[in-house]
């Protein structure tokens, strides 16, 4: 914890040092950036854009999980599914996220649905691969044990398969969040009239570095909060039974 804090302070210090050497139009210092950010918050424009972005992040993540998790599980458990699907997952992973965004906006229209579809489909292959690799590690001998003890198929899925898959689902949730929020910003820049991505692009066009950094900082802080405070806690509670304690 102290180490984390120390490294964070060091980075802020380096940022400060560098900003003294460079002009404000290239790199404003941490203090200026924080001031712009506070002004934005006081103006009341922050939460409108932030909420729009978070909504898309959540929607996109939900879609990505809904597609990626079942595909990954089936591929990990079933050889036939693995053989038929692995090429397509690789193809889907290779297509640049910009292509998904363009296609979604052209086919579905410049609306929220298109944004969420683009975000979800871009991240789904990574989540599927993550889960596919994970599910290969689960202990299938426990299935035989459960069957010998007369467990029904449903009981096996719910009480033997699911608890083993859950750690991988949680891992891909965190990992997926990291991908999703980067894509969300890109999608907003391309085809939405609000959100953090839209703001970044707007201030970029006006060449206002203070604003660009302020929005970047805001978004990073919010995502760190979700990752460190919400997801890590949830994980710790869910996997209390595990011998190895995570960092």
């Amino acid at each position: 914890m102290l180490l984390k804090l120390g490294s964070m302070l060091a980075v802020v210090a380096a940022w400060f040092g560098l900003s003294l050497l460079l002009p404000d139009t290239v790199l404003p210092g941490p203090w200026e950036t924080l001031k712009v950010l506070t002004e934005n918050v006081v103006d009341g424009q922050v939460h409108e854009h932030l909420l729009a972005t978070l909504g898309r992040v959540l929607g996109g993540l939900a879609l990505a999980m809904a597609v990626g998790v079942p595909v990954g599980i089936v591929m990990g458990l079933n050889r036939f599914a693995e053989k038929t699907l692995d090429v397509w997952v690789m193809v889907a992973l290779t297509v640049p996220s910009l292509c998904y965004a363009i296609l979604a906006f052209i086919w579905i229209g410049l609306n929220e649905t298109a944004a969420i579809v683009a975000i979800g489909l871009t991240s789904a292959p990574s989540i599927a691969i993550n889960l596919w690799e994970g599910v290969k590690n689960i202990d299938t001998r426990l299935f035989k044990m459960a069957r010998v003890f007369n467990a029904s198929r449903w009981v096996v899925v719910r009480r033997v398969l699911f608890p083993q898959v859950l750690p991988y689902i949680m891992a891909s949730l965190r990992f997926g969040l990291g991908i999703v929020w980067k894509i969300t910003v890109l999608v907003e820049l391309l085809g939405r009239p609000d959100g953090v991505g839209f703001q970044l692009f707007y201030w970029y066009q006006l060449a206002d570095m203070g604003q660009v950094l302020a929005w970047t900082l805001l978004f990073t802080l919010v995502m760190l909060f979700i990752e460190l405070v919400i997801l890590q806690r949830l994980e710790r509670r869910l996997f209390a039974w595990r011998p190895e304690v995570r960092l």
Partner: protein
Amino acid sequence: MSREATDNGIRVEGLIKEFPGQRVLDGLDLTVADGEFVCLLGPSGCGKSTLLNILSGLDGDYRGSVRFGGQPMAPGGKPPVTIGYLFQEPRLLPWLTAERNVDFALENSRVPRARWAAIKDRYFALTGLQAFRHYYPHQLSGGMAQRLSLVRALAIEPDVLFMDEPFSGLDELTARRLRVDLLDIWRETGKTILFITHNSYEATFLGDRVVVLSRGGIRDQITVQVPRPRDYDDAALFQVGKTVSATFIEAAEAAERDRH
């Protein structure tokens, strides 16, 4: 379902099991009397585990007949009696405590919920695990984990116990203790036990009868007439063990020759 018919013997006749290009069981006949402790001994690949898979209803693809206490088991169906199973590894659910692991088996059994507490008390006491009921499997030693899986197998009040090399993964000292405990529990409960092993002396120490398998059938059977309770250092037991061991090695060598 009533359980007045107390005959829990097993009768296997003409059992044939084929895998592509290989006949694993070739007309096997085997009888285990009600309450008898039979050890199956055989080289690897002789069909021991295949036999247990068939008898426990996991593998329905075979020919021949299987009966439990006179009731036939339909191929592809479940055994008509309750079966308790011990694997080579404990196969516990790592996210459940010791007690919850036993509950998992009970929930899928016919044992009425009202009796669970008494049953668990009894078998946790019998295996010396009372103090560890709230431990997770990773907090237990190998021997304790295997004891717990014995509690799980006994808790569902099985008519028959199948044991697939349950002590082969343990150190010899722990295995010895567990064998003695198993015999105590067997004396107290009178279960019919089919015990698979590749350890001749273990088979001799435990069994009423040792059946040596080879090439998909019975090669020899040795009745162990040493009275119980038995002692590891009993010279008579050691003599029988030597005979069993010689038969086992012969069977293994014959199987080896077959392969070449």
